[in-house]
């Protein structure tokens, strides 16, 4: 298998993915105008993850590539979530002492 055929994505796909990204950017900004309180953060993160997913799947060609690269990307996010989860859990469940002088 000397000259392995790399998957070539048609031009149209690139442009349509870019269009989606622009639309999602507008959505992110638009959504931020409303005040959902705590929920704002989660919506922003959700929309950003969709955009990130689009860039990773199409621009970085994870959709057509060896599954291993997708697992590496997800591993990165998994360990990040582990550190985040534990530190937030620790800070939120601390029993705070206070001075009684």
């Amino acid at each position: 298998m000397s000259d392995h055929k790399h998957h070539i994505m048609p031009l149209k796909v690139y442009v349509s993915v870019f269009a989606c990204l622009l639309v999602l950017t507008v959505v992110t900004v638009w959504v931020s105008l409303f005040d959902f309180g705590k929920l704002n953060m989660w919506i922003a993160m959700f929309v950003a993850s969709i955009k990130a997913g689009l860039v990773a799947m199409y621009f970085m060609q994870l959709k057509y590539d060896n599954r291993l690269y997708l697992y590496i990307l997800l591993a990165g996010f998994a360990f990040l979530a582990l550190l985040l989860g534990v530190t937030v859990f620790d800070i939120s469940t601390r029993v705070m002492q206070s001075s009684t002088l």
Partner: protein
Amino acid sequence: MSVFLLLIQSAFAERFMPYQGTAIAAEIDYLYSFLLIVSLIAFVILIGGMLYFALKYRRKADNEPTPRITHNTALEFLWSGIPFIIFMIAFAWGLIIHKKMVDFPDKAFEVHVTGYRWAWDFQYKSGKKITNELYVPAGEPVKLIMTSKDVIHSFFIPAFRVKQDVVPGRYTALWFEAKTPGVYQVFCTEYCGTNHSRMLAKLHVLPKKKFEKWLSDNPYKGLSLAQRGEKILKGSCAACHGLSNARKIGPGFQGLWGKERVLEDGTTVVADAEYIRNSILYPQKQIVKSYNQVKMNSYQGQLSEDELTYIIEYFKNEKGN
């Protein structure tokens, strides 16, 4: 057989562990001896097995054929299951004891601890303050509410098996119920710089009545003003300043009154009442030459007005004799 085991347990653990100052310390030692015994057995099995195999199957000829044993599922299940069960028992037992160590009894006697670079200040609700000497009643739960003025320290009483980091910017706490009166050693176990190894304190456990008397009596009763000043200097200041003229972390105090002091910026000033008061309340303003590595904490709000006058009184008449 079980009596024999109990004998080993208590003898073995007791010999190493310090005095059991509280009921919980005894429980911890009991759990620890259980772990010691179990791991001794496991160690004998593993290392004994290793030595036995090494001697029994030592190489007699160079290319001896050896059987092709690749695995034995039952055996492998055994030596992963049993350690797992033992570890879970150890975890659960430890959890039960630790739960007791962190459930603070609500009517505990509270003492405030302030750790700072290289000494411990203790403050009682009655306003009484003392350095490096903690007095607590025996047989009653005592809760220490602790914070630090500069870096992380850690309050450790080996005899009571309690330790808690003292973190700047927030309060942490620990509690114990001392069984028998006596004097116990306190260490700082979180690295905090130059005098980390000298940041020790003594914990005095007194019977209830003697403690009440100690708490109510005025530390300065029957002392002249100068003697009171000397008592303060020997308390909170002893960590860094000596009453002789020898240099410790800070300058020595002997013959300070009226002496010319050459400051870091080259100016000189006479050590009078104003100079002493300023160097206690705003130590950073006038630093004597070559003492600028270590920043002295200000004692603003720590020493009352009369205590400041006692100190000045001490210097005034110490010069006299």
